[in-house]
């Protein structure tokens, strides 16, 4: 099994598709950091605060960048890049015909699926956590460090150390969510010979779920929808800590991941390879 995993990693690191996500995220973070440094879009907030408080330093810092970046990428870039790689690992081999060559070797289909899924998980986790780390590093370089100030039903000020811990937890929660989205894409790719189909299907499920959760008629489904729990990380920064809500969210995301993986495994073991 370790050999299979090593081989999958060896192939993965040579694929240009693997580098699209990290490159795009790096450029995005750089653009946001540079933009925040040279224009202060939140100057009005600072002026308002100065009417009632003594404000020292800037609340536009590395922690602020990390927190607000997460807001913008949870439903856009991260799931897209996660699906792009997870949905490609099997589908591209089916499309290129290399899956035939693989399966004609003394290797079980379960081994193929497991090793590819582990690579998919590693990629998603590395992309999500790496984005957070890179945002903090670039934020520090361009904007400096400091407390995290949030305006959400009041003013919340988290000391730097607390902010870092909460940000790490937030990125970990988003990583778990992205793993669930990537797993759906992976499952779809086990019966398609086209990675675009897998990406489209997974993103469609994500956005469809986001729409459904807003419709009153479907409120009974809301606790089980992935998108209901993707935003749970917000609660790490404001309001009282609700451990039960976090556990429930993690559980739902893990169930989505595990169910998608199991479905992919079952489908791939049963399907005829005709490509």
């Amino acid at each position, binding site marked *: 099994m370790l050999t299979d995993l090593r081989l999958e990693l060896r192939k993965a690191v040579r694929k240009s598709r693997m580098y699209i996500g990290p490159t795009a995220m790096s450029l995005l973070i750089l653009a946001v950091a540079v933009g925040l440094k040279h224009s202060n879009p939140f100057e009005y907030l600072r002026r308002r605060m100065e009417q009632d408080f003594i404000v020292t330093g800037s609340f536009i810092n590395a922690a602020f960048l990390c927190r607000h970046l997460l807001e913008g990428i949870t439903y856009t870039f991260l799931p897209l890049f996660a699906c792009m790689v997870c949905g490609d690992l099997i589908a591209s081999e089916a499309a290129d015909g*290399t899956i*035939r060559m693989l399966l004609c070797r003394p290797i079980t289909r379960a081994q193929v699926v497991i090793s590819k899924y582990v690579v998919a998980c590693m990629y998603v986790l590395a992309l999500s956590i790496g984005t957070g780390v890179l945002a903090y590093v670039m934020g520090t370089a361009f904007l400096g460090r400091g407390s995290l100030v949030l305006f959400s039903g009041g003013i919340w000020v988290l000391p730097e150390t607390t902010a870092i811990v909460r940000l790490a937890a937030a990125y970990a929660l988003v990583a778990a969510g992205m793993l669930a989205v990537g797993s759906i894409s992976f499952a779809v790719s086990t019966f398609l010979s086209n990675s675009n189909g897998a990406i489209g299907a997974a993103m469609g499920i994500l956005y469809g779920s986001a729409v459904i959760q807003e419709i009153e008629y479907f409120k009974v489904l809301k606790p089980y929808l992935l998108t209901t729990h993707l935003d749970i990380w917000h609660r790490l920064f404001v309001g009282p800590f609700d451990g039960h809500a976090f556990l429930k969210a993690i559980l739902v995301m893990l169930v989505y991941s595990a169910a998608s993986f199991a479905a992919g495994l079952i489908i791939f073991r049963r399907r005829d*390879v005709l490509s």
Partner: protein
Amino acid sequence: MSEVVLETIKLAKNFRTRRAVDDLSLRVYEGDVYGFLGPNGAGKSTTIRMLTGLVRPNRGTARLLGFDVRTRHMDAMRNVGAIVETPAFYKYLSARENLSIFSRLSGGCDRRRIDQILDTVGLLDRANDKVKVFSHGMIQRLGIAQALLPNPKLVILDEPTSGLDPQGMKDVRELILRLANEEKITVFLSSHMLHEVEQVCNRVGVINRGKLIAEGEVKELLRHELDIVEFTVDDSTRAADILGRLDSLKVLSCEDGRVAVQSPAELISEANRTLVMGGLAVSAIVPKMMNLEDLFLKLVQEGGRAD
């Protein structure tokens, strides 16, 4: 009797309502170079896909080296090298890296062995080039290389000379013969190149509409068909008339002083005597040599004949 290395027992596969393979039973013995023939859509590729575990049969069993392909896939494929249709490789990796990856899935082999195989198929000087710059013929050669990499006891080759130039085809034919004769590797060869099969295979199976319509040794199958004889006479119309009256003899054609008949070998001399006694001058009696292509076309046109 040699050991059976490849066997299908009443193998069947349907795709929706279409029956692609129908109760196919065939046996390939150790040391055989077995030609698997059939027209397009006959079920050859589906059979090979079932043999390699890519497609699940609806019924029946496929065994490689004594192991059921479905239930003991890893054991079955451990000593098997295969090309199923056009070989495919990771285009972003070099030829050597591709072979390294595929060899590790079969237990691994050292760089020397990889280079030796690349040399065998004439790709050693391109070993470090990425596969994306390879021509179709080069990919075909690399496909053969990956099939030979794990030192297999059985090689399954699906159209291995497709896309190769005449020299490449000759090289592959010679390679197959060398594998069989020197390295004692059993070869299961699916091909449209009937003259190629005739040159390298000792046994063949012919499949049409999913059914096996003939199987046996090439020489034996052709000998069965050596009952067509052509008489060269001075008056072919009269000759055809005379011969047509003989029992157990069938006139097939009559033109330009030549009459082709189908007849048991022991009746040829009697037919000749009859023609001479009828006042005709017989200048030649030529057994019409049927080759594998003739046999194949005859079998397929007849719509099948159990051998």
